[in-house]
Structures are given as structure tokens and as C-alpha cells.
């Protein structure tokens, strides 16, 4: 005799424990569809209803949402990498080799996905900006959210940039050298920039020195890159994303039709 599935289902769901966890049923009613959003702490960032046109893939191309998802993905894989990586010039490169050689289970996949998703995030955020521009979605009342977006764009680039140094290999070392040398050329505040003498900036007290914690890229620079990459920048970006999403709800989403 076949077991009565409905009866088993009822046994599981019609009791106090189940009901204390799941606050409403899953009958497909308009009310439940709304509760599904409102009653879920993660989903209630959405409105319960949206206009039909605004969720066409060909309107947003899902690019903002994708950028956010990639950020979450990077957070997860990044934290996992932190278990195995030491920001010490004598250890960092060896840790990278351990990951790449799978001396750590799934290490190579972990490192590869974190690396490529980081690049992907730069691309998706750029194209998200392009889509927001082309749909004119930055126009009133959403001007300020565009400004927040630009800051997020810069933070995304900085996140990727600070990560570049961490493997402590020739590629990252010299890329970061090129990049941070630019800071040394800042007018007024960089030792090689125009008017540096005006405020007495030299190689051991200018902006570049502040970024590197030294006059060249050594152990302090690696530690600084690490702290910015793992704590400072993600915290700032995460906070601003919350603001970005809050403003989308408050300003109203642009998509109509």
C-alpha cells in the first residue's frame, strides 16, 4: 500500500514546532505571495509588488543584483581564504602555492573563483552604471543614488586593487608599485607631484608613504593592503550598498511600462 503523502505532509506541517518556524503556509494565494516577501528578513528588501516592465531582463540585465551577488560570493570565498592565508611577506606566497596546488582541499578552486569573480564584479558594476545611464535612471528623484553608486564603483576598484598585492608575487608586486607610484605624484601632497615643496612633503611623509606604510612596498604595505582588503573596504562597500538599496526603495525604481 502506498503511504498517504498528504497525511505525512500534514503530520509534518500541522504542529506547533513547524508553525513556530514558518509563519505562513505555502498555498499560492496573493496574500501568501506578499507574506513571502514581508515575512522574510532577507527578501523584504523588495517591495511586495513590482511593475511588470521593471523586471524585464532587458531593462536591468540583472546587473545591479548580480554585482551584489558577486559581492556576497566574494565575501564568502574571501573569508574561507582568510583561514589559509597569512599576510606576512615570508608566508603569503607559500600559502598561495598551497592553495594552487590543492595542498588545501579545493584550494585551487577557491582561489580561482575568488580571483575571477573579483574581475567579474568590476565588469558587472561598470555595465550596471552603463545601464543606469542609458535608461536615464539617475534623473530626479534618484540623483543621489547615482552619486552613491559612483562611490561604490570606486570602492569596487579599490577592493580589487588591494587584493592584487596579497599573493606577493611579481605580478601583484609591480602592478601595485605602478599604481601607488601615482599617489606619489599627487599635486601638493605627493613627493613627486607639482608643488610638493609647498607643504614640505617628501618621500617619507606624503600620501604614498601613508598608503604603503614605508617608502617602498615591504611588509607594512602587505599588511595594510590586507586590512583594507578584508575589513576596511568591504565594510564601507557593504554599508553603502545597504544605503543604495534603501534609496532605491525610497526614491522608487525607475522602470515603468
Amino acid at each position, binding site marked *: 500500500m502506498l503511504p498517504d503523502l498528504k497525511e505525512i505532509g500534514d503530520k509534518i506541517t500541522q504542529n506547533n514546532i513547524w508553525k513556530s518556524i514558518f509563519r505562513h503556509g505555502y498555498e499560492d494565494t496573493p496574500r501568501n505571495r506578499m507574506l513571502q516577501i514581508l515575512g522574510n528578513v532577507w527578501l523584504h528588501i523588495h517591495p511586495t509588488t513590482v*511593475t*511588470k516592465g521593471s523586471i524585464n531582463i532587458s531593462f536591468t540585465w540583472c546587473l545591479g543584483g548580480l554585482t551584489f551577488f558577486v559581492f556576497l560570493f566574494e565575501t564568502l570565498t574571501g573569508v574561507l581564504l582568510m583561514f589559509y592565508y597569512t599576510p606576512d611577506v615570508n608566508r603569503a606566497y607559500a600559502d598561495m602555492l598551497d592553495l594552487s596546488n590543492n595542498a588545501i582541499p579545493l584550494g585551487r578552486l577557491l582561489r580561482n573563483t575568488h580571483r575571477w569573480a573579483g574581475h567579474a564584479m568590476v565588469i558587472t558594476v561598470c555595465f550596471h552604471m552603463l545601464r543606469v545611464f*542609458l535608461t536615464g*535612471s539617475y*534623473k*530626479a528623484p534618484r540623483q543621489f543614488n547615482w552619486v552613491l553608486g559612483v562611490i561604490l564603483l570606486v570602492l569596487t576598484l579599490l577592493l580589487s586593487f588591494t587584493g592584487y598585492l596579497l599573493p606577493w608575487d611579481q605580478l601583484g608586486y609591480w*602592478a601595485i608599485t605602478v599604481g601607488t607610484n601615482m599617489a606619489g*605624484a599627487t599635486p601638493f601632497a605627493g613627493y613627486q607631484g607639482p608643488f610638493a615643496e609647498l607643504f614640505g612633503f617628501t618621500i617619507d611623509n606624503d600620501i604614498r608613504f601613508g598608503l604603503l606604510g614605508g617608502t617602498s612596498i615591504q611588509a607594512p604595505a602587505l599588511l595594510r593592503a590586507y586590512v583594507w582588503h578584508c575589513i576596511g573596504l568591504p565594510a564601507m562597500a557593504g554599508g553603502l550598498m545597504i544605503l543604495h538599496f534603501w534609496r532605491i526603495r525610497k526614491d522608487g525604481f525607475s522602470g515603468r511600462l
Partner: protein
Amino acid sequence: MANPEATTLKPEPRQTQPGPEKIHTWPHLVAKEFLCALLFLVVILLYSYYVDAPLRELANPGEPENPAKAPWYFLGLQEELVYFDPWFAGVVLPSLIIIGLMFIPYIDFNHKGNGYYTFGERKFAVTTFSFGFLLWYVLIIMGVYCRGPFWAWFWPWEKWTLAFPTPPPLWSLPAPVGVLLLLAYFGLGTWLPARRWKDFYQQLGPVKYGVTMFLLLTMIGTILKMGLRLGFSIKYVLQTPWFNI
């Protein structure tokens, strides 16, 4: 207690014209988001399975890479280093790009085209932005694929060698000529379009118009400078004891 006005007030007529059609976020939007995320996961896992993240030799401060390239998304700026000094290519130009981007919503007076794709209603805005976006990526592609040792130009199919021809010597314009040229470029570049497109100028007003044109002329100016350098071997348009442009 009954509201005395309630009896005299007629109920608000229901909105007769229905607004845009609304649908439930669950499941319509959530499902799409989920599929997007899933698709991304599949792509990134497949890609990461087949392509390894780069890892070169241990960092060696005594042995510079040649060429030493910044991460790809900054290679547009590094490419500009050929044409400008670092204070401009590496600091002022990116700062102007960031500030310029932030200014966009405040200088775009055109109310049309809010929330849908259109070219016809925002010809100037769409053209300018798309051009800048494209420029950024063209410079990146040049930097990633066409620059070899000592930042010399190699086509992607060419082998990198150190035996490339010595570049021709560079020269700079005399300072007075440079000053005049820059003043003329930004002066006329601001004044002439204001005369030609009076409506545009009047709708923006002098401040927004000035900002818009400054940003636009700076963008075009970087390309012109590239032309001067590549076509006429000009190193600096303006040379001063303090800074060069």
C-alpha cells in the same frame, strides 16, 4: 465619534486610469534573481575549473617586471601616462572622471528619458557618455594587448622583443604658445558652442554649462593630446617650471 465632515465629503473617486500593471515580487522577480545568481555560479565555477588564476614568481623588489602593468581596469590610466605626466594621468584625470560622473545627475537638465532606453530624446547625453565609456575600454584594450617591454607598442600577434625602433625625439611647445593654445582651446571651446546652440546654453545656465563643457573639453583634450604626441611627437603642450601638460 463620527467625523462631521465625513458625511459632507464624497468619497474620493477611485483612480479610473489604472497605473502600470503590477505583479507579485514573489515569485516573478525573486525567481529571476535566483536564476541570474545560479547562472553566474555555473559560469564562474566552470571558468575557474579550466582557467587558473595567475601566479608568477615570488615578489622580488630588486627585479622589476618589464612591462610592469597595473591591474587591467587601470590600464587606461597607465596608457595615458605615455601622453601626460603622472600627476595628471594618475591623479587629476581619474579624480575628474569620478567627480564628473557624480556631477552628471546635477548638470543633466533634460527631464525626458527617465526610466527607459532612448537615444532620440537624449542625443547629447547618450553620445557623450557612451563615447567616454568606450574610450575607457579602448585604452584598456590597448594597454592589455598592445603594450610590451618599455611600454612599446606590439600588436597582439607580434612577439615581444627589445629590438624595437627608437622612438623619434620629442619636443615641447614654447610656454607662451602653450598658454595661448590652452586658453584658446578651452575659451573658444566653451564660447562657440554656446553661440551655436543657444537653447542648450540657456537651459543649462552659465554654471552648469561651464561645468559640462569643462568636463567634455577635458575628455576631448586628452584624445587631442594623444594625437599631438603620436602624430607630431609633441611631449608637452605647456611646459612650466612647476608642472607640464
